[in-house]
Each structure stands twice: as structure tokens, then as C-alpha cells.
């Protein structure tokens, strides 16, 4: 049985795949210092992940993927992970990343600062070392950068995966999962400036348990135009299967922009290609919005209630299970990680045992005075 977890980090992203064979893949990281306060509803991600790893008796992830370099996807990561490129980030209690996955943009972006820069340095270091990294897409700019480092594209080609390919290192037979890359396309970074959200990593995971396949569409912060591109390209290649989903990570904290150009009054109308994508949700499908609770009123920033309405309709229309919001699960005062079990009977959103004594005793108690 595999499981997928989504952590309540507010308007941010952090999810984890734990495979039946024990391998762990963490996608994005967002730890805010304020969340360490018991009064803050957001999870103390650092402590929670640490506890999980401790229970599993390990100090590393097989893969840590950053879908793009925005703050809400990397916040606090340089305090948490062991970084190979500089001693400052190598204290013994840091969590190791056996393999780092980044879109090419994260290596190529110039003029960045803060944690984005630190992670860029780490990715560049690993790429130069030629190990512990996977870069998604190989735009011309990357070849240029490598040349500047005295390296050839060919010498690093095995560490790069393009859209339309499967990620090496995982397969349905030994790991029970394969990852198909939808994005980034090289064109996303070969323009004048790098559009982070457009160049973000989008994967489609297919889990297999016995003969049951369960599909997880993992979309970072992506807008409707990119999604439409992906749908059109994938369909034109006859790979509709790679767009079917049982589990869907809603892009950009339930922003209407992931559906269409107009927010709408009650409901966002998706562009045709995105509507088609939503229609690929299978019976019992689950939509996860990694965001703050859905507001009742109209707001400028995501989550947008109009978009939420569209996703709720999707669940109803597809005879799905649930549209779940990380900061509302199971309630908005004290949200808890969402866990989806994936087994021979498909995906199952865990709803039992989230409340009461069994949960209290599964983690350290709040601070007593």
C-alpha cells in the first residue's frame, strides 16, 4: 500500500509520496516560523516531518523535488535539508536528499536571492558533481551554462529528463509507481525571461498495486494556458492516459487562473482544454487544494471561492469522493495532514481516526506551562 500526504502549510505546498517499498519522495517544502506557535493553525512542518522520519528510522528522503523556486514552495528548506555545496548547511541533524529534482529554470535563473539562490547553488553544485540530481528539461540555455562550467551537455544528459518521458529510477514493477513528465517544456525557459510558474515541474504518477492502477496528477503553480498546452500536446501524441487522474493536486492554491482567464461571479468557467482535463477524474477521484480555507466572499488572492465551486462540481459530476482543502482537513481550527492510501482497491482518502485520543497520542503534546 502506497500513501500520499499533503501537509497543511497554508497557501503553500508540501506533499509526500511514501511507497510500499519504503521509498519517500517529498514534493516542495514550506515551513513558516510562525507555524511553530501552537496558536497558528498551520502545521509545524519541520517538526512533523522530523517525527515521521524518526518513526521510520531514517534521516533522508530518496527524492526531494522542488517544482519551482517560489517562496511558498521552498520556504525554510535551507534550514531543514543537508546541502552539499556549503558547510553552513551541513549540521548533523539536517535531513539528507539522496536525489534532488528541479526544473531547469531553478538552475538557470539569474539575479535570484535568498533561499531560491541557495537552492540554485545546491542544484548547480550537484549537477557539476554529476550525481544526486535530476534536472527537468534541457533548454539551450542549460547547455550554455554547462559549457561555461567546462562541461558538455552529453556528460550530464543522464541526469536530465524532458517532458514526454518517464523519470528514470522508478518503475511500476519494483517501486509500484512511474512518473511521467508533462512540464517543463524547453520553451518555458528559452524565452527572454524565465517564467517560474510556467517552467514549473508537472508530473503524472501512475501507481500500480496488483493490477490496479491509480493516477496522481501533480501540478505545481500553473496557470490555465500552460495546462491547456499540456492537454493539447499530450492528446495530440495520443497519450490521453497520462491525463486521467484519481488524485489531483490543484494548482496554485485554488486560484481561478488555473482554470480560465475569468474568475466569474459564483463559479469559474474553465477553458475547454482544462474542462476536458477535469472530466478525466475517475469514479471516487479526489481533488486536493493545498491552500488556506476557502473563503465565503470574493477575494483577490487565492483560494478563490469561484474556483472551489468548479472543483466541487467536478467531484459531483465525476461521482468523485471529495474536494479537500489542506487547511480545512478535518477542520480549519486544527488541520491535520491529508493522507491518501493507494492500494489494490484504488485511492482512499483517510477519514477515520483523525480526531480524539488516537490522534493526540500519535504526536508530542502541546507545550504545558
Amino acid at each position, binding site marked *: 500500500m502506497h500513501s500520499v500526504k499533503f501537509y497543511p502549510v497554508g497557501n503553500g505546498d508540501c506533499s509526500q509520496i511514501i511507497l510500499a517499498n519504503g521509498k519517500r519522495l517529498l514534493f516542495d517544502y514550506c515551513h513558516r516560523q510562525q507555524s511553530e506557535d501552537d496558536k497558528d493553525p498551520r502545521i509545524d512542518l519541520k517538526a512533523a516531518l522530523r517525527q515521521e522520519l524518526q518513526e521510520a528510522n531514517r534521516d533522508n528522503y530518496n527524492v526531494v523535488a522542488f517544482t519551482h523556486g517560489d517562496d511558498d514552495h521552498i520556504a525554510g528548506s535551507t534550514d531543514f535539508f543537508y546541502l552539499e555545496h556549503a558547510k553552513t548547511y551541513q549540521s548533523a541533524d539536517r535531513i539528507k536528499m539522496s536525489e534532488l529534482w528541479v526544473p531547469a529554470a531553478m538552475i538557470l535563473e539569474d539575479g535570484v536571492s535568498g533561499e531560491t539562490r541557495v537552492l540554485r547553488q545546491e542544484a548547480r553544485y550537484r549537477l557539476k558533481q554529476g550525481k544526486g540530481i535530476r534536472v527537468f528539461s534541457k533548454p539551450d540555455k542549460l547547455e550554455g551554462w554547462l559549457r561555461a562550467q567546462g562541461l558538455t551537455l552529453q556528460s550530464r544528459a543522464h541526469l536530465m529528463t524532458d517532458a514526454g518521458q518517464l523519470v528514470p529510477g522508478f518503475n511500476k514493477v519494483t517501486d509500484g509507481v512511474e512518473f511521467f513528465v508533462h512540464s517543463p517544456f524547453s520553451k518555458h525557459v528559452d524565452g527572454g525571461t524565465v517564467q517560474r510558474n510556467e517552467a514549473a515541474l508537472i508530473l503524472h504518477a501512475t501507481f500500480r498495486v496488483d493490477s490496479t492502477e491509480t493516477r496522481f496528477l501533480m501540478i505545481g503553480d500553473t496557470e490555465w494556458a500552460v495546462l491547456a498546452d499540456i492537454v493539447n500536446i499530450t492528446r495530440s501524441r495520443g497519450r490521453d492516459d497520462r491525463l486521467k487522474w484519481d488524485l489531483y493536486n490543484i494548482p496554485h492554491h485554488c486560484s481561478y487562473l488555473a482554470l480560465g482567464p475569468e474568475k466569474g461571479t459564483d463559479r469559474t468557467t474553465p477553458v475547454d482544454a482544462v474542462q476536458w482535463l477535469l472530466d478525466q477524474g*475517475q469514479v*471516487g477521484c479526489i481533488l486536493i487544494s493545498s491552500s488556506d480555507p476557502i473563503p465565503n466572499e470574493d477575494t483577490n488572492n487565492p483560494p478563490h471561492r469561484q474556483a472551489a465551486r468548479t472543483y466541487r462540481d467536478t467531484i459531483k459530476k465525476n461521482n468523485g*469522493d471529495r474536494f479537500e482543502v489542506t487547511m480545512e482537513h*478535518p*477542520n480549519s481550527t486544527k488541520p491535520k495532514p491529508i493522507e491518501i492510501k493507494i492500494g*489494490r*482497491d*484504488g485511492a482512499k482518502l483517510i*477519514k*477515520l481516526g483523525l480526531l480524539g485520543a488516537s490522534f493526540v497520542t500519535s504526536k508530542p503534546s502541546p507545550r504545558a506551562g
Partner: protein
Amino acid sequence: MNTHAVEGQDLPLTAEALTSPQARATFATLQWYPYYRLVAAKSFEQFGSHYDALIVELNPELPQIKKYDIRYREPLALCFDHTDQRLPRVQALRKDFPLVPHVNLVPTGAPRELCLYAEPPEVVRLTWTPPEFLARIATWFAKTATGTLHAPDQPLEPFLLTSANEVIVPHDGLDLCQQADKRLIAFPIIRDEQPSRYSVRLSWQPVQEALKFPWVFYALVFRLSPREHGLIHDRPRHLHDLTTLLAKESPPFNDWLRAQLRELFSEKPRPRECDWLLLLLAIPQQRESGGSVERTERWAFVVGNSVTEVALAVHACGKSPDGFCVPLLESPGGQTFDPNSLTAISLEPLRVISELTRTDANCLSGVAPHESSRACVLIGAGALGSQIYVTLARMGWGEWTIVDDDMFLPHNSVRHVLGDNCVGMYKAHALQRTADVQLPYNQPRNAIAANAMHFASNPTLACALKDAEVIVDVSTSLAVARALACHAESNARRVSVFLTPSGGASVVMIENADRSYRLDVLEQQYYRAILRDDRLRDHLQGHSETIRYGGSCRDVTTVIAQDDILLHAGLLAKQIRRGVEQDEPQVVVWRSHEDGSVDRIAIPLSPPRMCEGSGWQIRYDDALIERCAELREHKLPHETGGILVGYFDALRKIVYVVDALPAPPDSLEHTTAFIRGVTGLRESLEDIGSRTARLVHYVGEWHSHPMGIGVQMSAQDRHLLQEIADEMRFEGWPGIILIAGDRQQCALYLQTI
């Protein structure tokens, strides 16, 4: 979605609109509890009770592939009795809700009701809270969807029939081939204070028996074809429902019923107008469709009309001109019933409960089959014996023969399983008679009212002992225990149990499997433990009070409370059960204390030894030799010695040497001679006598020889033995000396005058 409408009056969605406190509390919880959506509130009346109903939609935890068709949105009615006297009922409102295990039986067409609790309502109510209730419903759905509510190793779901009344069916089943003169007849057991609550006891009886009762139920058993378990949930309301439900069986139910009733009315005597009908359905259950039959579920219904009326309604019989109910001939092509006349014949379901079988009793008590069939003889059916016997027999442990020649007298009632109705009877016979009625699944093999010692002249007794695997002596008589141990012809393991005179301690002695430690030897070592272990100092001290119940000298009984008897009977029964499972010999003492605590002392046992001379046997053991060797070792190169204590069995000419005492301080211990002193000896013997209820006393002398001398008697030793024998003659006993030498060598010499 096609759902059952909840009848009744709409209520506003406020807590105040609800009457039931549980409903209000649940209403409040639903405001924040996840995965539930409150849709509406209603109030309705059913069977004279008023209910609040909360209509909710549950989003259960479901995998995409489900064992049963549970949906992502399930409409439910949570129905709360206004008085909160019952647990809330939960109805699944979807009309196409699947047939799943663990739902309550409801009348055909009614919404399915979840069976949420295995515990009785009064227990559930102790911990019932609205969140727990909602969580339990959510769990029910989650587990039902995955088919895990019923664990694979759990027995198939028993028929969950919510009926106030029950029928007890015979342990030999409903499957006996009917004997010509016997029928399944049920007698009602009506409880006066509550006439609507009754039990029906079903048994195979000659038809004539029925006439002895004012009215009875005739029972008919219909056998269905095998089916998957837990999947029949419609409760037939009347005979028409049942005929419809079973129309596809072979033969169809109505044909079968008509044939059965026709046959019933062809017999003499016929059912009377006042007799009723009980219908039983036997439904073979499979875990999965097409699998093997794991158990047979049984349903029972009391038919609301007399057997005569039913026979007429189904055209099995017709009225003769003189008003008798006579069987009709089978009309060609069968007959169809008038549905209306069958709708009028109501069915009241009964819970079906089987009589206890020996296997059930074993299972319920954790007794293995080989223990169950062990042939046992109980010697002594007194206070302790009767309680031990009943305790073991109840569990289906052992097949028993009861031996006791005593009569039950009024004062026995205080500490016996039997009571005043048995006064004047032999205890053995009375116990057997009581067991026959109370424990029909483990009736005693036999009861012999004879003195257990008289096995030589009582062939029945001799035979019972010979066939036994275990003989349990509770006679509280040394004579019996020793006679049984030494003489009775039997390979059975002997067990002896008794209470000490004060009733404050009990003892069990169990021979080892190959009987190399016989009861008499265990008794001997038990005495040594009393001498050596200070915890047992007062073990055999009697209770001072005795009570006379009759005029003769022997009509004395002691003061022991029944609670003490029961406490020790339980401990002893358990030890007997465990002890005979092991091969080793065991002697165990339990002491009960004033504060209610009980402690257990396991007596150390030592390999027995025996030697013979002058027509006597001397029984001793390794522990005695070790003691002498130890004392000798301590004094070498000087000799040492002391007295031997033990007892004699004149009947069998056996000396039991229990222990050797160290030399009194005024003894002379030379390198070549030993003269035993006397200082403190009297006190020692007094202590020994008092500890052992005067059973253990002086039996002889012992002394050690220096190194390399051997254990042969010297001239002096011979003289000593002669002297002792001369003295002991006045008590009628032989003289005995023991000589201890190197390497734990020792020799015992006995001389009679």
C-alpha cells in the same frame, strides 16, 4: 438518488426544535463534525414511541474499488427516541442500499438499519457520546465498503434478530430423522410478571406428551438451500411474506407446509384446537457463494394463529361436517393460496438459542477435547468434593463416577452444592440426579453409594476405578487415600485434595504420570515440608470450635465458612485440571488469609526410596539422605547423629521416615562413637507433633560413620538397634536405625522383637 422518505413532521433546523437530549447533542456535534452534512430534521411516531430524526449525508471513507456498493454520499436518518431509553437507530435511506452484513432485521420494504454495537445498550450508554456515535457510523461504512467489518477469522455472522423472546432448540439438533412416535414439540415458559416475554423450549417428544400440557407448539423445520452469510435482511411479517420469500426453494415453501400439516393432522392424536405452530427455518451459510457450508443459521417464528387455523388456511385440511379438521387430499396441480388469508397470519420472530452441548461448555471454559473425555472417579461427595466436581463437570471436564457412602443431612446444606431437598438421600445419588438435570451435557457415568475402601468387595466400584484415568480423592480420610494409592487395581493417576482442619488452607497432591511418586509418598514429603518450612508451622492447627449435629460421639462437624470452601474448591479444581496435564508429581498448598489474600506454596519433592526387612517396608527419599550427609559432613571427622521422625502404617507394615533431626547439644560426638543427648529433644518432638497434628513422631535413630568405614552396623550399632527395638516393642513398632557414610551412602536397619 432514490431514497426512502422519512415520514413525519418537518422540524426547523435548530437544537430547540428537538426533544431528545441525545438528538440535540448530536445536532450540536454535526455543526463541526467532519464528513457529515445535516440536511433536515423530522419528528415521527413508530410503535407508540416518538422519535426525532436527523437526516444527514455522510461522505464515508471509501476506496475506489469496493466490496459492497457504498456510495460517496450516503443519506442517513439518525433516529432518537424522545425518552433516550434506547440507542439511536441509524437507517440507510438509499432505496438501492446493498445487502450487507451487520444490519438489523427490518420488515420487508423498510430502510435498512445499521447494527452498530455488539455490546448491549446499557453497556454502550456508559460511553456513548455524539462524536463517538458519528465515528462509529463512519467506521461501519468504511469497513462495510471494504468487507472488513467482519474479520476473516470471525465466525460467520450470527442471525441478529431483535426479538424479545426466544426458542431454545435441542442440543441434538433439528436434524434427527423423525422417529415414528416423536415430534418436535415446544413448551412455553411464561414468566408471570411479564406475560409478553416468554421462552419456548423445544424437544423431541412422543406426541402423547403434548396432551399432558394445556397447549403446546408443534414445530416444523424447513430447510433452505445454502446461501452467502449475512445477506438476508428482510423480516417476514406474515405467512404470505414467508411464502413469497421461499417460493423458489425446492420444494416451494407453501407446498412443503401443506404436506407437513396434512401429515400432522393424519396422525393420532391430532393437534388440538388450542395448539400452536412454530416454524423453524434452517439456512445453511457459506462464507462465499458456492463455498462450503460453515454453519446453519436458524430462524424461528411463532405463527399468530392456531395450527388448525393455519392448516385450514393453506388448504392442508378442511372442516368435516362434524366440525373436525381433517386432511384434504392433494389436489392435482397443487393449489394456490389466497394471499389475503395468509397476510392475516402474522409471524413473530424468536431468537434461536441452542441448548448447551459438551463441546460448547468446553469452548466456553477453554477445555481441550482430550480433557473433556477423561474418565474420572470422585471419591467423596462432601462439601469440598461436591463443589470441585460441579466446577469441573460444568466445564465439561471429565466423565465422572461419583463414589460416596454418606447420607445428606440438614447441616450439610451450609457447605454443599446440594440443598435441603436432598436430605436423607445418599450424597452420590443426589449429586448424580442433580447433575443429570442441571448439566445434561455432562451427566455422570455412575454414582456409587459405597465405602471407597470396599473396592475389593464391590465389583462396580472396582470396575470404575480400573477404567479411570484419574481418581480424585476428596474423602479427607488418610485411610482412603492410602488404600487407593497402594491397593486399588488401577493405572489411574491418583489425586488427593483436602482442606486443613481450620479451613484456612488447602492441599492438592497429584501423582506423577508413571506413578513412581504414589500418594502415600507425597503425603510423607508434605509432612517434611510442614516440619521444615516455617510458613507451614500452623498449617494443620485445627479450629478450636466443633459443633455437634447429632447425639452420637462422631456427630461432630467443624466450623468452616462456605466462602472458604468455595475459594479453595476453585483453586483445587484448577490445579487438578492443570496438574494432570503435566507429567510431574505435585504437592501444592494454598493459604487464605484474613485480609483476603491467598498464597501458594509448592512443596519440594524428592525421588522416593524404599527398602524392606523383617516383613516391613521402610519408605524414605533422597532428601532424607541429603540431610544426614549434610549434618555428617559438618561434623567430620567426628560422628554425629540424632533421631528419625516419621510414622508407621500398621495395616500395610510400612515405616515412613520423614526427616532426621540434628544431634541435641549434649550429644557426645567422637571420632569413633556417637551418643545422642536429650537437651531440647522433647521440645522438638512436641513441635513436630503439634505441626503435624500428632501424625509425625519418633521412629528411630540415625548416626554417621567416619570416612572410609562404610555403613555396615558395628557391634555397638547392633546393640543400639536391639535397645531401640526393645523399647519400641511397647508401642508395637519395630526399632530402626540409619547409618550415614561416605558419598551419601546410607543404610537403614530394622528390627522387630
